[in-house]
């Protein structure tokens, strides 16, 4: 693993880190989840080896979020939106649309049966969120030479300092953008909010971060016992026994 950690401050107007048990009438966790924090680091810098011969993705590394500092007290806001009940078709159908073998079929918002059409749902989102996130690069075995790790660290730092990202980072839902700023080590910043809560079993991630090759998008749901003390959520390493994981190949 890299000896360096990187800290960024992230903030935004809204956020929704949906609790899996309340995914229909959405209700957010009071703080950002490790997987959402990882997504922000990924959006700034993540890279992989994509070979044309087998078409599989070999990530160079994954991000290990270590510490989440809550800088603003969690405040909820209720939003109501018209959503659709159905989902888009699978990859095969979309490929046919692209190749012109079939005419595209829109997702009808005015369907009348139980599985299509509009439905009004509530989102209990967070407003005015502000976090300080600290994470470390964990390189994959074949990319773990010191000069490579150093390169990854420097690339992230350079990109983050220039405000560069591959995609706009977001807070749980892509409609809630996140803005970020790199924090130099030793820099004095705002202290965490006086927030304490035992959240209980919280979603850690939905993918197996240890995998060297990404062949599919099979879920791998891991959990950890989350507790925010004095505004700080300490995140255990993914390999740790504190992170409950299913057996390999299972959800």
């Amino acid at each position, binding site marked *: 693993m890299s000896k360096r950690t990187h800290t960024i401050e992230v903030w935004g107007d809204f956020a929704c880190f949906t*609790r*899996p*048990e*309340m*995914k*229909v*009438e959405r*209700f957010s966790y009071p703080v950002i989840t490790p997987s959402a924090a990882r997504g922000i680091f990924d959006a700034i810098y993540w890279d992989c080896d994509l070979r044309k011969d087998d078409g599989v993705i070999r990530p160079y590394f994954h991000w290990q979020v270590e510490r989440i500092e809550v800088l603003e007290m969690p*405040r*909820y806001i*209720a939003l109501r939106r018209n*959503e*659709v*009940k*159905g*989902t888009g078709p699978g990859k095969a159908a979309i490929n046919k649309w692209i190749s012109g073998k079939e005419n595209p079929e829109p997702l009808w918002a005015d369907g009348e049966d139980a*599985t299509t059409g509009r*439905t009004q749902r*509530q989102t*209990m989102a967070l407003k005015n969120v502000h976090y300080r996130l600290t994470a470390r690069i964990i390189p994959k075995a074949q990319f773990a030479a010191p000069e490579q790790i150093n390169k990854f660290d420097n690339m992230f730092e350079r990109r983050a300092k220039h405000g560069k990202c591959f995609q706009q980072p977001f807070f749980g839902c892509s409609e809630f953008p996140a803005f970020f700023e790199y924090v130099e080590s030793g820099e004095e910043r705002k202290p965490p909010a006086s927030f304490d*809560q035992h959240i*209980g*079993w919280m979603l850690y991630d*939905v993918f197996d971060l240890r995998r060297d090759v990404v062949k599919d*998008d*099979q*879920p791998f*749901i*891991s*959990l950890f*016992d989350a507790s925010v003390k004095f505004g700080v959520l300490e995140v255990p390493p993914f390999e740790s026994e504190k992170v*409950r*994981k*299913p*057996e390999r190949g*299972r*959800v």
Partner: protein
Amino acid sequence: MLQHIVEYATKNIPHLQPGFGPKKVKWRITINQTGTAVVEPYGSSEDGSELERCPEYPANLLQSGGRCHFLVETLQVVLLLLGTNDDLEKYQGKHQYFIELLKMAATVTPELIKAADLFNDSHRIQSLSEYLRNAGAKPTDKVFFTVAGLDPLKHEPCLEWWSEFRKSLTIKEGNAALMLCFMSGEKVVPKATHPKISGLKAVGGRGQDILIGFDKKAFESLGLEQSSNCAMSEDAVNRYSKGLDHLIAKHSRMLAGAKVVHWFKEAVKPEDDPLSFLYEPPELTEAAAQASARQILESLRSGQRPAPSDNHYFALTISGASGRVMVRDWMEGSFEELVSRIEKWFADLEIVARDSGKLAPDPKFMAVCGAIMRDLKDLPAPTATALWRVALAGLPIPQPFIAQALARFRADLIDDKPFNHARMGLIKAYFIRKGGDHNMSAYLNKEHPDPAYHCGRLLAVLASLQRAALGDVGAGVVQRYYVAASQTPGLTIGRLVANAQNHLNKLDGGLAFRYQEQLAEVHSRLGDRIPRTLGLEGQSLFALGYYQQIAANRAGKNTKTNETNEGGN
């Protein structure tokens, strides 16, 4: 959130076992050794009594039809006592299944054969039905039975049989892949569908609403189906659903279009429950000799009243929405923190009474909500929920609420309605919670630094002067000029003061002198600082100054002001 409900259920509900639950039963059939039966009302009240451990058929399988619960069911199923719209064929199927279950359970409890024979005899159940119909029974009333002196609901072999039988019904779910339980973190077989929650019919629910359910494709993720999107064991599901049912039934209160459920980690005596004070301050509900909410809170905080140490509170706001349970808010924190915040809520809302010169009683929470609406029934649930959070979390009062309160204040003033204490307290609390030094006092504050406050006071004195000089003139200074004076005092106040001289001329020397003195006092505070226009906050201070001056005038010379509070003259 749900883990706290599970903890509550584990601590407070006996017999928490999947396949069993409480039911309210109204009738009991007593079957003796010879097979003859007598039916009688059960329980002390008209609504019957609750039996804690009744067998429950899996809800998802019940929907397929032709199935029913074991041992405790409705009169429709047990005795085919049907209403005019009931489908005979449907209930005959359920009735036969009820008998079939009894026959199967008779392998461990042979007495049940007698009951099965009775319910299979159409003549005998008809005579029981006729008796019940004459006694005013409803087809949906629940009934249970005892047979040959045995109560099957207390017969362990019979209940164990049910438990095993029920497992065999759900064996299909048992073959599913193991997943991590979101409640316990253990690897479990996820329950495919969760039971529904009762008690939300009054707040948009259907009576039976689902909290965790993923029936539409758009709400499933990662290729997972149904409730495997949030894997939970059957035991965890049973505990959270029973716990929430229990909390809604025993510890919920209406809050506009939602219900607030609150409880404590360690039980708190009802008379020491700070959250109850929000709804019913003790001095409003009990004898006048009772301590006020703030006195009790103070004694709880200082330890004079014993309270469990390291206690926590939990508050959940929920409502129903098209068959689903909607969580609107969740709050938790330490008991000490809660006590100090409720204490602060009452302290911030403290305001002088409109005519006694003393402090107005602590307002009920719903009175504060009603202070910003024309009618309490118009109160939107999000507004009530937001104010609830303001009270419990010690947050600032949102500015739009003050705009609404001010609009209601002006409307009531023009209609000559009495002042609303909760509304004036809320306006005062807005400035306190906003932060900064706003010199807010419950009583008249002659030292207030803001000229808007003194403009309000001046209008109150002018109105009082007019009444003293002319009596009731219908539309007086206030009705005609309040709105203009509170928005553009620079244009209005001068004209009103000039007219005051005519009113002073009509008064006797002593009274005229008193009013002149009052006018001079307010003018001395104002100086030449009369603002040309006032924004929302200025208008709020204007209203507060007007109200506190009126209250001081009505209470007479002995009224308290901030000066007397501070030990001045």
